[in-house]
């Protein structure tokens, strides 16, 4: 799987809806009709910060992801990219 570029800007796909839940969040893509579960509130913060952050790395930083865990969040964002939940900002 190709790794998500942490130094690019990313947005949620316009057809994706985010619903916060006590355990994290649910993401639903109206185009693909796929559901994803974020099992972590920090990941939710990252996803919510993407639109206003210049890069994914900056979004992780603003959500308080420690350097040591960056790879884990990069992988999670990569999975969201694979399922078209995230699109690279051009």
């Amino acid at each position, binding site marked *: 799987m190709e790794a998500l570029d942490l130094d690019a800007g990313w947005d949620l796909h316009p057809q994706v809806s985010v*619903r916060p839940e006590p355990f994290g969040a*649910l993401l639903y893509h*109206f185009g693909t009709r796929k*559901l*994803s*579960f974020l099992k972590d509130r920090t990941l939710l913060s990252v996803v919510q910060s993407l639109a206003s952050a210049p890069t994914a790395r900056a979004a992780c930083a603003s959500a308080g992801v420690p350097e040591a865990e960056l790879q884990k969040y990069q992988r999670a964002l990569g999975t969201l990219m694979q*399922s078209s939940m995230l699109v690279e900002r051009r």
Partner: protein
Amino acid sequence: MMTILDTPALEAPAPGAVRTPAPAKGTRLVDLFEYGLDAPICLTWELTYACNLSCVHCLSSSGRRDPRELTTDEAKAVIDELERMQVFYVNIGGGEPTVRPDFFELVDYATAHHVGVKFSTNGVKLTPEVAERLARNDYLDIQISLDGATAEVNDYVRGPGSYDTAIRAMENLKNAGFANFKLSVVCTSPNIGQLDEFKAIADRYGAQLRLTRLRPSGRGADVWDELHPRPEQQRELYDWLVAHGSDVLTGDSFFHLSAFGDALPGLNLCGAGRVVCLIDPVGDVYACPFAIHEEFLAGNVRSEGGFQEVWQHSELFTRLRQPQSGGACASCQFFDTCKGGCMAAKFFTGLPLDGPDPECVQGFGETALTKIKEGKTETPRSHVDHSHRTERYSKSGKVTLTLGRRPGLAAKDLKPALSTEIAGDAVAFRPDLVTAMPVNDRQDDPLADFRPEGGRGGQ
């Protein structure tokens, strides 16, 4: 490693694809979901009890429209609420939902308000023109019901002509360019041998096959003994699912088959009242579509606080979100994936909810059922029955014929009066129940109440 993201989808693909080791207990979605969600992930909404068919296994005993049905405005208010709660999509069913004259108005209203729609239909209204119109809506998915890969098998269960109607509807969808709609099959003993043929039909129309489980709910209780897959067929089904893999949908309905070996993918959880529920045509909220019974009635959307209040605070749903005891199943090695199977299947066959599923593949269900039958205990019947007053024809001999069923009068109340052993008993035999009910074709016509033009009956 703890995963922080998961994408199983409720409509889980069948097994066969990659299997990953189960994460440690406590971090799995199923463990998080057992305590419920702020709003359902998806929700079944039956818009009407009216139906042009009389399928012998109808889970909601549909046929006649209920006069208390939610009005267009009430239905729109429910949609507004679902939008506020961020319920991403609803599975609309019935009855036959498309016979509501405001059906397309409601579908358009929902999708315009960010509530996606998947609706189930027997295809009766899917003309080429309607199919064209539906194909233009990106937020819409359609599920055509077909319970036999041949007219012979299908029409035995769904009624004469229903095979042709469904095939015509699929042709129209295909011609309109509606890609990847669903062909939905309830698995029964007569059709388990046709799984390959179902797949071929789905492929022919560019549809995705969806297989679900027969439940002894509604009229399904009358035909359960005859139609539910035999033990060797359960195995055949499981093997077929394993072999055919990722593009066959199952609605997560076969998790009781996990006890054959590998767990099937999906939540492996009874979602009733935790992640799913049912809104019925009169606004009653039940724990799941297969549980239309007072025992599983949580409230009504017309009451104060609406649907949200029922979902978040009803006594029933709060109770269903408590940790469940495995009861007699707790010591079984497969309990972790099978979870004791389907609550509704147990309830309507008279089995205790904390015991084995009637189709437990380890055979524990049959043993329990035998005990119940020996004890001659009455199995629970739903208080809700909108069956057409004239039954189509006899299937198994177990379906009682041409009986007037008064609303609120359960079939069990009628059956003793007709059974041979009591028929001679002057006290038990109450002919008024049988003959006094008007059998009125017009009243029985599900469309009879839906004629806005002309002077009659329109909403």
